[in-house]
């Protein structure tokens, strides 16, 4: 008896995932709930557990393939002796008989559906377009009968994922029959296009499929740039007071709350203070309306080896600095382990990005669409400043606020950043909420 391994539901708005690493080979004996394969989604990497104990009979999708929610990944053969030929796209070794002792009785009755093994091929035009866009079967969700990929589906997928196509392959969805009009550098002289990289160049190039996460990052960033009237305003903050407070209470804080006192807590608090005053920075555009959000879900960008993720501090205005620090530390840990859930990253209203941890002096962050503001933190550095007519060295940080000028006026943006600066320079304001 075979139990199907399917792509589980991965949270709202997630419709597909990329198959990461198969942790088991076809023919391996697996226990129920043992991780079988990694799936990368836009936001997180999840492991798909074995739905039943038995032998991994076949792997249907190769690593790097994009699969839709509910798609068949493979099958587990629950019966002992059955040798199931591996017919998947995988180049894995053919299934071998399970070791005699292994198989346990099926832990739960698995529904055996009569799913037709054969997959509908993409339509002829879609096949060509997919080849041109560098898309694999499975990259595109088909809208035709029985999930067939049709021409329109490829066009839609290409639009959604401009990153998915290899750079060197020019794409022409539909060339005009008559001399080409506006799009691209047509006509295409054959001699230019036919010449591939020379052999010596070819061997020194490496082609790596963009991860789902990377594709999403690319897409979102470009979208933000395309849509928002984005610009950045700068200020600087004297971190003396915050650093003094940190030094004074570091140990006590850690003892009491079990978490280190960092800078993020102060910045989150400062931003909320400023957002309350300037609601346009905590707003978004929806059609011809502006949505002002009277709640504060602050995204904190966390770098991981897979790319940047932005987990959300929900209702951050109701959190203490200790709670904020605790939550951020937990996010960081889970992000590095790839264990953030989708819900951890949805619904932010404002974002803080800290390039300072990597030593950045100054940057212009890109908005996390559809949000209207993002604060950039940078490195703290002793710089000469003038206080009371004297040149003194102070720990300074440049602050950057990128904002959507469509709904945030210059005055508002500058005021927002000034407020953040004031709060940081005088943390007593937190207590008084001014």
């Amino acid at each position, binding site marked *: 008896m075979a139990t199907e391994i399917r792509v589980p539901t991965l949270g709202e708005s997630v419709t597909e995932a990329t198959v990461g690493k198969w942790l088991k080979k076809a023919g391996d004996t697996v226990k129920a709930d043992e991780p079988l394969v990694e799936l990368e989604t836009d936001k997180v990497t999840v492991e798909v557990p074995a739905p039943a104990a038995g032998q991994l009979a076949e792997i249907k999708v190769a690593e790097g393939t994009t699969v839709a929610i509910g798609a068949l990944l493979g099958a587990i053969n629950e019966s002992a002796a059955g040798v199931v030929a591996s017919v998947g796209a995988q180049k894995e070794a053919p299934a071998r008989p399970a070791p005699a002792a292994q198989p346990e009785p099926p832990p739960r009755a698995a529904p055996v559906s009569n799913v037709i093994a054969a997959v509908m091929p993409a339509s002829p035009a879609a096949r060509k377009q997919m080849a041109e866009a560098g898309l694999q079967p499975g990259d595109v969700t088909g809208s035709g009968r029985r999930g067939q990929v049709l021409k329109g589906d490829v066009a839609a997928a290409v639009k959604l994922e401009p990153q998915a196509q290899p750079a060197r*392959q020019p794409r022409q969805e539909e*060339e005009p029959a008559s001399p080409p009009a506006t799009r691209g550098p*047509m006509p295409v002289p*054959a001699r230019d296009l036919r010449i591939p990289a020379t052999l010596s160049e070819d061997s020194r190039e490496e082609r790596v499929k963009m991860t789902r996460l990377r594709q999403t990052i690319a897409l979102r960033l470009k979208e933000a740039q395309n849509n928002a009237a984005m610009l950045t305003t700068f200020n600087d903050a004297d971190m003396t007071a915050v650093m003094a407070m940190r030094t004074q209470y570091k140990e006590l804080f850690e003892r009491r709350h079990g978490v280190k006192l960092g800078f993020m807590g102060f910045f989150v608090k400062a931003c909320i203070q400023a957002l309350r005053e300037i609601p346009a920075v905590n707003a978004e555009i929806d059609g011809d309306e502006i949505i002002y959000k009277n709640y504060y879900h602050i995204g904190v960008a966390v770098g991981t080896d897979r790319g940047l993720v932005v987990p959300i501090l929900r209702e951050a205005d109701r959190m203490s600095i200790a709670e904020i620090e605790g939550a951020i530390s937990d996010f960081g840990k889970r992000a590095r382990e790839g264990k953030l859930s989708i819900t951890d990253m949805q619904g932010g209203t404002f974002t803080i990005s800290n390039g300072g941890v990597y030593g950045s002096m100054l940057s212009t962050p890109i908005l996390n669409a559809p949000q209207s503001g993002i604060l950039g933190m940078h490195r703290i550095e002793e710089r000469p400043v003038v206080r009371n007519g004297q040149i003194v060295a102070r720990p300074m940080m440049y602050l950057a606020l990128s904002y959507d000028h469509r709904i945030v006026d210059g005055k508002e943006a500058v005021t927002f950043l000034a407020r953040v600066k004031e709060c940081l320079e005088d943390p007593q304001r937190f207590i008084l909420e001014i």
Partner: protein
Amino acid sequence: MAGPYDLIVIGTGPGGYVCAIRAAQLGLKVAVVEKRATHGGTCLNVGCIPSKALLHASELYEEAGHGFAAMGINVKPTLDLARMLAFKDEGVKGNVDGVAFLLKKNKIDHVHGTGRILGPGKVGVTFINGEKSELEAPAIVIATGSDVAKLPGIDIDEKEIVSSTGALSLPKVPERLLVVGAGVIGLELGSVWRRLGSKVTVVEFLDRILPGMDSEVARSLERILIKQGMTFRLGSKVASVEKAGGALKVSVEPAKGGTADIIETDVVLVAIGRVPFTDGLGLAEAGIALDARKRIIVNGRFETNVSGVYAIGDVIVGPMLAHKAEDEGMAVAEILAGQAGQVNHDVIPNVIYTFPEVASVGKSEEELKAAGIAFNVGKFPFTANGRAKVNRTTDGFVKILADAEADRILGVHIVGAVASEIIAEAAVIMEFGGSAEDLARTCHAHPTLTEAVKEAALAVAKRAIHM
């Protein structure tokens, strides 16, 4: 001649001229080299098109003589062969002129001469008057097609011993015609002359007609052709042809060996197949590799082992069919323009224009059995089709082969009137990977012969209505 060119196509048959037009559509500057006075290659000049003209005319002649009376039309047709051949030539002219117009419309330069590959990017042209010239382009497509395969020891004079070319222009109807080869050309041209009055004998080396076709289809057509008056000598070979006082003495012996007997005939048509036309192209000098059957070896992009030299159609592997060459021509043009041109060689229809016609696409039963694929068969005879009944064209059937599990259509084989037209819907649904049920659930107009296709699709699930 206005250079420089992006592409030079050698040969303007269906593969070459389509390739040239498609490339021009995509913005490439194209020149074509053609040695024949007219475009269109074998297909338009001495192949598909003229033979269809004669098949059409001879079919009507036969119908008028034998079928009209039953419908209450009393006529006694007389044959004006010269006029019929002129009718054929008019049809050819209309088509080749059409190609010339299309090439001109797409601003493709026509070089009238014989092309020869001088090296990567270089084509030498010998004009009809013997003068020579050279053309250069980064891409060259060889689309030189194929030539008649010859029988060793038998010289084709195109008068008494003819190839398909001569058989399209016999000045008078031979009393007796002996056809060597029971393939598509032999059966089509054999049919033409039988209808016009010849006594036709077909000698075939194999013990079946239409090698490669689904054998049930072949057997069925064989029975029908015998009924029409054609004689078959299967499992036999022609050892020699001797001219003896106005007649030809053909020595026919069993393929396995044995005693020969002599068949007297007036005309011998050699129709044992076609061979790739690769001579005189300078392929050996250019270092272009051929396979054992003298076909040019190409990769998935139709490129030969010499960079920038491509080949399509009859000179490469695959069935020697005009439409296969056309699609390859289109694909290679798109590839040259940076697109992902492709041809699905699994879905190429194949038609024999006898009466009834035979058309097939996809796999035969034998191929599926050999591949170990489990399949279901749905078959529906035209005797049970309303339109065929009133038209009295009840010979033949539609057969659909579908995957036993997925129901996906793997092959469609039709013997019947206008099978050539009907096969198109099978190709479309196969190209989309459709199932027999998909076809069965697609509404077909009534009354049409295509209803037989729908019924055959229903028959795959054993639920044909009209059987």
